[in-house]
């Protein structure tokens, strides 16, 4: 027991009788997750036709740990020839894969899910090192959910007739999939699991800054005995992704990422007749009504915007608070934000980790500067930040107007904009006043109000008295500039089958 700090805090509290003090009495010792149970290779090749190989041109990319700016590994940077080879491998493998008894395909997916669970610790560590997210989230969210997606779709593999009664679902063929850097393994699972369950083969392009868990997943696929060519993983940069989505041998494109790139892809595919699903940006409204459970709403707000450093397309980045509870809520939010533990992502007690890349950090900084310039009031946590790496404090703005850039543009970082409303109608009007429509949240204790609001919110997902909760059985996807198509649930299978009478592609 340390007496001196306690006395100091009591003295301070006497001077200002209503001040809470934190961290002077009991500080947690560092609790880093161990890294001696797995290895990161010096360099990784592309995973094509069941084997790893260098890129044809020999190009490589470094992947960094954003928390330290140290190089973790080099990965091959695939070019057009590599994409071509991967698509050809997927094409060769597809008839046999689709021709397997459906239950057999399900068995492979079950096996992958179980292997992910067995190797969960290694995947969580790798995800945190490569992407900067806290190990607690990688361990408790990313990896378990990725395994859950494989389990879930394993179950569908031999039940597709039930998902589309009378529709005689058939695979599309070879699907090209491009995924983002915010949930590298989870997005790979979202893409690969339904595609395989439906009898398609896959060429997957992971994000430039976070390729390592997808490559580790390739090892799991080999371990599971998945036939060569069924899944091919081509790492690289934007040009690699562009080569994949434009490749004539690809029968369907699925993309998760920015709205700007999504639009480019849609333009490139226009007239080709190829099915496309897009899961793009968002600027979700998180609505708190005056009868909400305020303490829990604050938890939901924190989860909504600071989860994964705010690198979440469905992040609750626009907080709409009923004016009568605004001051109380902002006060509680300020205190709570101050308690967020920012730092070494590998520490098991870290709540918020590093920004994924320097480029993303600069985007966040620019948008936050615009918020201050346009007259919004800035609040940032006073937490200490590490010297090296890419860091941004948990931040929120009050006195934000609809016209501010920080209320309109996706920041994709730990930055919340707080706006107010007076009536439920006004909340709906403001919530829907955005080009996006991916997700929304509502906090109220009144059931009838939940239903009234949910029916009027133009968003693919509406969370009630919670936020950022995911389940493979629940379809996820957007409206308008947030994209189209759904992932997860029965609806998510629709993007990977053609039904009787449909004429796609050629």
């Amino acid at each position, binding site marked *: *027991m340390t007496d001196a700090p306690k006395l100091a805090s009591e003295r301070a509290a006497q001077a200002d009788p*209503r001040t*809470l003090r934190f961290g002077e009495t009991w500080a*947690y010792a560092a*609790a880093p997750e161990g890294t001696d149970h797995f290895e990161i290779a010096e360099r990784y090749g592309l995973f094509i036709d069941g084997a790893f190989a260098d890129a044809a041109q020999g190009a490589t990319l470094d992947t960094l740990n954003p928390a330290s700016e140290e190089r973790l590994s080099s990965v091959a940077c695939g070019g057009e020839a590599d994409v071509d080879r991967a698509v050809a491998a997927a094409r060769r493998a597809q008839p046999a894969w689709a021709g397997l008894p459906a239950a057999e395909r399900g068995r492979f997916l079950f096996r992958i899910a179980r292997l992910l669970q067995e190797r969960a610790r290694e995947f969580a560590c790798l995800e945190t090192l490569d992407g900067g997210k806290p190990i607690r989230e990688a361990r408790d969210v990313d990896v378990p959910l990725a395994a859950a997606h494989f389990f879930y779709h394993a179950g569908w593999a031999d039940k597709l007739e039930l998902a589309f009664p009378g529709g005689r679902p058939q695979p599309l063929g070879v699907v090209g999939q491009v995924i983002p850097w915010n949930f590298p393994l989870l997005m790979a699972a979202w893409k690969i699991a339904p595609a395989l369950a439906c009898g398609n083969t896959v060429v997957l392009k992971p994000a430039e800054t976070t390729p390592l868990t997808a490559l580790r997943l390739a090892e799991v696929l080999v371990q599971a005995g998945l036939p060569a060519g069924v899944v091919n993983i081509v790492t690289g940069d934007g040009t690699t992704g562009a080569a994949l989505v434009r490749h004539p041998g690809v029968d369907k494109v699925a993309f998760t990422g920015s709205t700007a790139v999504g639009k480019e892809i849609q333009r490139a595919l226009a007239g080709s007749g190829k099915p496309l699903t897009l899961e793009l940006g968002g600027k979700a409204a998180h609505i708190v009504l005056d009868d909400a459970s305020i*303490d829990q*709403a604050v*938890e*939901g707000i924190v989860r909504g915007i600071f989860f994964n450093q705010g690198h979440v397309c469905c992040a609750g980045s626009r907080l709409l608070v009923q004016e009568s509870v605004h001051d109380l809520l902002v006060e509680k939010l300020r205190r709570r934000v101050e308690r967020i533990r920012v730092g070494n992502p590998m520490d*098991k007690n870290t709540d918020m980790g590093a920004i994924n890349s320097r480029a993303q950090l600069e985007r966040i900084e620019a948008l936050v500067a615009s918020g201050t310039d346009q007259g919004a009031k800035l609040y940032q946590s006073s937490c200490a930040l590490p010297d090296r790496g890419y860091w941004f404090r948990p931040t929120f703005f009050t006195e934000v107007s609809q016209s501010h850039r920080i209320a309109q543009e996706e920041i994709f970082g730990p930055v919340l904009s707080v706006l107010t409303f007076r009536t439920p109608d006004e909340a709906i009007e403001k919530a829907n006043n955005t080009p996006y429509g991916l997700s929304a949240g509502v906090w109220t204790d009144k059931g009838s109000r939940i239903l009234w609001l949910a029916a009027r919110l133009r968003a693919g997902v509406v969370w009630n008295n919670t936020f950022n909760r995911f389940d493979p059985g629940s379809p996820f996807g957007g409206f308008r500039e947030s994209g189209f198509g759904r992932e997860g649930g029965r609806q998510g299978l629709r993007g990977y089958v053609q039904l009787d009478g449909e004429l796609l592609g050629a």
Partner: protein
Amino acid sequence: MSSPVTPSDFRVPPVDQVALEARAAELASRSIKKDSKRQGLLMAVAMTDLTTLEGKDSPGKVRALCHKALHPQPDAPEVPHVAAVCVYPDLVAVAAETLRGSGVAVASVATGFPAGRTDLSLKLEETRRAVAAGAAEIDMVIDRGAFHAGQFGQVFDEIGQIKEACGEAHLKVILETGELRTFDAIRRACRIALLAGADFLKTSTGKVAPASTMPVVLLMLECARDYYLETGRVVGVKAAGGIRTAKDALRYLVLVNETCGDLWLTPERFRFGASTLLNDLLMQLRRLDTGTYQRPEDFSKD
């Protein structure tokens, strides 16, 4: 209270069960290692109300427990004494005699513990006698029957009168959350107890399941924190019943540390009501020193 309390004062904001439980689970996943673990274990020892509340309690048993309270680990001077020894009213004098001048307080349950289904005049008399016999802390039970009947004013008045009967003694108000069941009811009961002058909010008698749970204690801490910010008065929280392992104790301390902060991280403001917890704390402390677990038989049972 300067202004009279009215029924509208007993209205409280709603509690969302799912989100409250999620927050408690998140805090329960904190990893407490090395020095912070040692410090946490020592704090937990100092915050323990070593308790015996059985029909077969005898003077001998209570004396033995008092000695354990004074010197939890005789061969380890860095281990502090516990906060209090908690007994039935008729054994207060025995405990007071053994603990006199030691810094370990005598706490007594009173008010017809654990059901509380007795006449108010008897509850008041029981409280006065326990205090007169040397109890520095009184653990009362609220009238759950009146609470469920919606007689919040009656619950409030009774706490106020017991508080008066306590005189200088500190009053811990047992809500018996296992009988209130919903978080909304628990928050309302907290509010009533805070307004009525409780020095501590306490979860349970230990005679009803579930006793103390992490979400319940998180909610109580939030109530105590908000009440402090509203009035400047610091009210403690006591988690009682069902806490048997050092691991659980550390999790409760994490709740305190991250919800209320430094002001509550002291035996004056946070307590564990437990009988078997103490030895697990001692065993974990010993393991930190030696790297190995010792047999439970190596620690005195009382």
